[in-house]
């Protein structure tokens, strides 16, 4: 395998909060190759966004937030960089699209101005050239009257339009990696389809890698090459999209797949996962899923499983899969 574009190596993130330490991300390791689409799925609060933000250097500064492990871009550890050295990477090498386009854009600046900013900062274009480029970018994301839209303010546009604008901003400096953090959650299905389409086209056109964060398995199936399943701050399973959907190994992944009603395939009851996600303030030292796991054994309440390869392309972190347990 060639040198990955991005590599998370035992990343852990802790927040100091009023109620105690929140262990948002623990020991997360995975890599993204150039041009690859990786999806991170998991329930709310399992650390998806925090993982992505750690890559952008957008987490709050210490002591509110403590980082461990490494995040490497082209083999250079980003976490060791001073903030000033990190800044030029943002927006140029790595770009990010957020969940709520409405609040992600500045309400007092026009869309065009916001679109020009990275061009002026990273590509040192003249304002006039940046404006031209901004128009071109809007056209590229399928906006019909780019001049008019560039001159308008976020509140004048619909959610779908704004998400297109966000995408235009993200791709403006031809990043090598685009992080899309639940880019369509706030949108209607029909608009979601448009945005996913667009995302796919852009990726194909520019060859950038995509880190797609979502809780919707349908989107994962449509968009990703590889999937990372997270639960309570840890990676519980990772593998190619086919591996994950065809033979999920981890009971959590299995549960997730089974708990969605599938159109046209109606069951009397869904296979719900009982219980609830543990609070990041009170994570157990053993497998965090043990309490909800239908297959849990006594050992699960004592040990923390680690990721193990179950096939050349797939890994899962479950004691049930470990060889010694099987023995």
């Amino acid at each position, binding site marked *: 395998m060639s040198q990955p574009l991005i590599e998370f190596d035992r990343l852990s993130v802790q927040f100091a909060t009023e109620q105690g330490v929140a262990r948002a991300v623990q020991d997360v390791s995975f890599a993204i190759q150039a041009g690859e689409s990786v999806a991170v799925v998991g*329930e709310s609060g399992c650390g998806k966004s925090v993982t992505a933000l750690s890559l952008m250097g957008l987490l709050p500064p210490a002591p509110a937030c403590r980082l461990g492990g490494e995040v490497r871009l082209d083999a250079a550890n980003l976490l060791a960089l001073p903030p000033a050295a990190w800044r030029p990477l943002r927006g140029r090498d790595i770009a990010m699209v957020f969940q709520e386009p409405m609040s992600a854009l500045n309400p007092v600046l026009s869309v065009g101005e916001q679109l020009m900013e990275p061009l002026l900062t990273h590509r040192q274009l003249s304002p006039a050239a940046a404006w031209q480029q901004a128009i071109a970018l809007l056209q590229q994301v399928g906006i019909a009257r780019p001049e008019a839209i560039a001159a308008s303010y976020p509140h004048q546009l619909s959610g779908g339009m704004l998400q297109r604008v966000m995408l235009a901003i993200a791709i403006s400096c031809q990043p090598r990696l685009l992080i899309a953090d639940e880019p369509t959650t706030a949108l209607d299905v*029909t608009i979601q389809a448009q945005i996913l389409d667009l995302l796919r086209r852009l990726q194909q056109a520019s060859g950038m890698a995509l880190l797609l964060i979502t809780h919707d398995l349908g989107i994962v199936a449509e968009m990703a090459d590889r999937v990372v399943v997270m639960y309570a701050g840890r990676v519980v399973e990772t593998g190619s999209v086919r591996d994950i959907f065809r033979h999920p190994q981890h009971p959590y992944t299995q549960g997730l797949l089974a708990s969605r009603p599938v159109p046209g395939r109606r069951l009397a009851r869904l296979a*719900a996962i009982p219980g609830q996600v543990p609070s990041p303030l009170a994570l157990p030292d053993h497998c965090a899923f043990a309490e909800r796991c239908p297959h849990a054994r006594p050992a699960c309440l004592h040990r923390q499983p680690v990721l193990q390869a179950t096939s050349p392309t797939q890994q899962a972190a479950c004691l049930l899969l470990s060889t010694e347990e099987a023995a």
Partner: protein
Amino acid sequence: MSDDTLLAVNGLVKHFPLHGGVLGRQTGAVRAVDDVSFVVRRGRSLGLVGESGSGKTTVGRTVLGLHQKDAGEVRFAGHDLHALDKAALRRLRPQLQLVFQDPLGSLNPRLRVGDAIGEALLAHGLCPREALRERVLAVMASCGLGEEHYSRYPHEFSGGQRQRVGIARALALQPALIVADEPVSALDVSIQAQIINLFADLKQQGVSFLFISHDLAVVEHLCEDVAVMYLGQIVEQGSREQVFGQPRHPYTRALLSAIPVADPDARRERVVLQGEPPSPANPPAGCRFHTRCPQATAQCASVVPVVHRVAAGHQVRCHLMA
């Protein structure tokens, strides 16, 4: 209309006035609900689907009498709901309940959940004070909540548990109809399934639902009848099999095809609708869908389509059905 009709909505219209000008006079209206008719039968559930802003919530609230209607009729169990006086409406309340989308927001943060569930029972004299706790615990149990939850505050629950509390509160009054407005959209995937199962159980016990959702899969899972809304109007309604099996309206089809399928090999061609829904304050003339319809004709832009019955119980509001 047969005997088993629980709720009949006929030609319902609800406009929200828009004010403007120097003197603040009414200058227009958001036509949130425009001529909507449907029926919910006893023991069955109607799923109301549609995109954001299509008027689903407004329908639900007008049905509950929380908004004054502008035209049409809402008959619930034989009563004309909007013609009732305050006291009569209050007496009817237990029959007709609501479950909200945001479970935290729908619970008073300063009230123990046991009290929240029980207070309406007391208020309606449905249960003597001495028996209240038992009764509440029973309802809570049927929603998967234990005795230990009785005297906790809403903030001490997880999202799914809160939604259970919300459902238990509605259920305690033994309603005939529950309007559930996107009851699972705010929940995590694994929790969603728990709540969906709970609804399925309740249906077993004979409660009817007006189930509002933008999630077609959930509606298909739970509802026998389905109505699809677009810009304040129902564009297609029928049984689950009709609407999901043989969708006739181009919008329904587009909607169905837009759902991402959790199967990496099922990468199919789909109808991607262009553009976005117009504003309900200024809906397009003719067929409201014609601006986005892949099959629109010149007629669609000018003539308002009527409702066509394409099969027994299957109605479509589209010129193509003519």
